[in-house]
């Protein structure tokens, strides 16, 4: 699939990136200035690394040792830029079909199909100047999809939008990631978007890629604290909707061995769902507590405790193959005498599971 192993110096940034992705949605996650756009521009061919090799689907895009550097227009990588970059003198329709009439790309993807997928039917005859920010991004995504790409790069497509616009466009991204059938490289500094959309996660920090792997596994890695962002750290768990409690407005989600009660979950019985539980919303107790407002409490066993210099400790607990991450003070770890292998009761505040962090898988 996509194989990247490159190095170079760009401006003041020492760059060294290595990762592989097996299709699906690969997220490139890192803080601002960590080199995300530099890396995607190198993969797209807009920047040239000094050394290394990039290959996609068996085609070598770049190989410093062999002197291969395929020009941008021959890489067949659809690029959705942060700032949309629609052609202002062309209608939405001509923008969407640009790769067909100017780029001599064919592709079996139908214009109508993409227009449907992204909800563009009412915008076709408009000029980009008359579109909202969210509409522009949808057109930019459609335009890239119609260029018959082998890979779709999405460079923070939501970064320039306000929260309301993001919520408008995220359902389209959900559908795109599920239905497009093309590997996607999704760049983001928002762990929420990453957790919601991706299969593989590549961490980028100061121009380096310290780790990559399946997203659920990466989110429970406690050694990547700073790179994944402490405050937002959390685990991904999969579950199945088993029923509704209409009287109290709760959805019951079986996560294997335990049933979570979640308010306002937009899912139906039988759906598989992906939930993100932030470490700071998880508490631990030695015994099942009584007289507590927290509804989600179940037994799990501690697999690891990582204490660092700060006041906090990151605890991983496992429940039927699913890992939950908790963040409590080191003082509590000492008081409760917690250790790996010990059974504890995990308490999750239902209200802390945010709607934006759910996705239908």
């Amino acid at each position, binding site marked *: 699939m996509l194989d990247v192993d490159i190095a170079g110096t760009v401006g003041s940034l020492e760059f060294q990136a290595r990762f592989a992705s097996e299709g699906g949605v690969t997220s490139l996650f890192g803080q601002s200035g960590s080199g995300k756009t530099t890396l995607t521009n190198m993969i*797209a061919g*807009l920047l040239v690394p000094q050394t290394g090799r990039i290959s996609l689907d068996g085609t070598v895009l770049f190989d410093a040792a062999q002197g291969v550097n395929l*020009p*941008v*227009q021959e*890489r*067949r*990588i*659809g*690029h959705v*830029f942060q*700032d*949309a*970059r*629609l*052609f*202002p*003198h062309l209608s939405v329709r001509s923008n969407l079909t*640009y*790769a067909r009439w*100017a*780029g*001599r*790309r064919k592709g079996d993807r139908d214009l109508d199909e993409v227009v449907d997928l992204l909800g563009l039917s009412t915008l076709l005859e408009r*000029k*980009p*100047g*008359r*579109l909202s920010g969210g509409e*522009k991004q949808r057109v930019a995504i459609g*335009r*890239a999809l119609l*260029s018959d790409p082998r890979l779709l790069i999405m460079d923070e497509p939501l970064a320039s939008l306000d929260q309301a616009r993001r919520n408008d466009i995220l359902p389209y991204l959900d559908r795109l990631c599920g239905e497009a059938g093309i590997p996607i490289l999704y760049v983001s500094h928002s762990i929420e978007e990453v957790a919601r959309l991706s299969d593989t996660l590549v961490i980028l920090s100061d121009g380096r890629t310290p780790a990559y792997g399946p997203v659920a596994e990466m989110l429970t890695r406690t050694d990547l604290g700073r790179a994944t962002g402490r405050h937002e750290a959390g685990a991904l768990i999969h579950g199945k909707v088993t029923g509704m409690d209409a009287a109290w407005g709760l959805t019951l989600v079986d996560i294997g061995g335990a049933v979570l009660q979640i308010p306002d979950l937009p899912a139906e019985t039988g759906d598989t769902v992906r939930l993100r539980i932030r470490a700071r919303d998880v508490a631990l107790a030695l015994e099942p507590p009584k007289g507590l407002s927290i509804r989600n409490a179940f037994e799990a066993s501690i697999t690891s405790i990582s204490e660092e210099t700060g006041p906090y400790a990151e605890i991983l607990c496992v429940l039927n193959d699913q890992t939950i991450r908790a963040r409590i003070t080191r003082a509590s770890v000492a008081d409760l005498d917690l250790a790996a292998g010990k059974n504890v009761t995990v308490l999750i505040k239902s209200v802390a599971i945010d709607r934006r962090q759910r996705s239908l898988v």
Partner: protein
Amino acid sequence: MNLFDLQPDEWQALLLTLKVAAVALAVSLPVAVLVAYLLARTRFPGHGLVNALVHLPLVLPPVVTGYVLLLMFGRKGPVGAFLSDTFGISFAFSWTGAALAAGVMAFPLIVRPIRLSFEAVDPKLEEAAKSLGARRIVAFFTVTLPLALPGILGGAILGFAKAMGEFGATITFVSNIPGETRTLALALYTATQTPSGDLAAFRLTLIAAFVAFAALIASELLARHLRSRLGGADA
């Protein structure tokens, strides 16, 4: 003989002027677009020299430019002799020489606004075009050129006006031959040198003013049309 009764030789001067200016523009505009694009988008050895050469006719006395043209493109000039022997094209004392002089003098005025409008087109749009499979030349014709059209129009209008009014280089290079190189400006000059030429000079002045005014109105209408076609906003 009244104010609006154009004499045959005045008609001739008007038509000749339009022909000279149109040919000068038709030949120099594509070259100007190319030079402006190279100056705006590329860095090559001699970039500054080309830039200086392009602007030279603007700062040299027109008589000097005309004389240099005479030396190079005259019958005995190196370029003139070559073109005459090889292609049978002669510039000396013919309307084609007037067009050459007008084109050279107008060139810097055509290049400047076009270069500015190329520089105003975001290169990121060209990157986007390439990522969609367009080669550089295709990206130029489908994205860069259409977006620079207002500047190209501005350069063309300015160049046409300059070509119509060109005097010094023309009279030095191809002289003042009625029906061949006597454009409006030269005819007007001739009229002012003739004892009974006041009325003719006044008529020629009116014609020149009328043509210039019509060109300005036309360019304004075209620019408005272009702006609305570009959507009036950036994307």
